């Protein structure tokens, strides 16, 4: 490639860079807000239903999480959640439905590598770190709290 053409190409690349839309940060954030918020509204609906059905608040919260995980799992199985994630970004990843999505999507994807070595070992490929560090941090803060408040 002669230098003149190279310079031309570089100039063109620069032009493309200038004119291509900026990664549209605010649009991403707005969609994350709207979709994440909408999922939480759905969760609130579940919470209201389970608060009437269950005996304690903890049970109602646990049932709500399970219901949302069920919905996230089914939506992933149908391929709907991944379409939603294209628009929603963190709005679909951060709610607990996103946790279900990572587990189910990994299970589906790695299924072809075998049921034990694929599905079984890679199901928690993304959700695993959340569990590990959730448990570690919970362990540490609870230990400190129990020591300070004399629970032992």
């Amino acid at each position: 490639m002669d230098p003149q053409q190279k310079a031309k190409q570089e100039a063109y690349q620069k032009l493309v860079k200038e004119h291509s839309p900026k990664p549209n940060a605010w649009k991403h954030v707005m969609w994350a807000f709207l979709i994440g918020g909408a999922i939480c509204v759905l969760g609130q609906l579940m919470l209201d239903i389970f608060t009437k059905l269950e005996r304690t608040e903890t049970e109602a919260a646990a049932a709500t999480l399970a219901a949302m995980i069920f919905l996230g799992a089914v939506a992933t199985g149908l391929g709907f959640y991944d379409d939603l994630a294209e628009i929603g970004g963190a709005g679909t990843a951060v709610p607990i439905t996103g946790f279900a999505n990572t587990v189910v999507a990994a299970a589906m994807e790695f299924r072809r590598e075998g049921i034990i070595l694929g599905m079984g070992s890679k199901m928690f490929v993304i959700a695993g770190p959340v569990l590990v560090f959730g448990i570690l941090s919970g362990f540490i803060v609870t230990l400190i709290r129990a020591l300070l408040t004399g629970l032992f």
Partner: protein
Amino acid sequence: MQYLIAFLVGGTICALAQLVLDHTKLAPPHVLVGLTVLGAILSGFGIYEPFVKFAGAGALIPVCGFGNAIATGMLQEVKRLGWEGLFTGAFEITGLGVTAAVVFGSVIALVSKPKD
């Protein structure tokens, strides 16, 4: 009103996570882990519970609610059993969700045709 608060609070947490994703080199798992740890720590300080009272599902559904559920379960079990609770409590509340994810995930993966 509770629905509006849940929408605004849950949406704001997701929007903040999106901001972090867009403006740092962190990948989604980093952000999810960060939120979970944050939820567990706030729970340990006793801040998350009033936050749940205020925001309802807006505080429970984002993954920081998962961290809160881990720490809350541990504290409950420590009160009930003593130190053993530190080791049994993590799944006291979250076990239901984790098991649900494993069961639904396995069933769906086994019945659906693998995509190419």
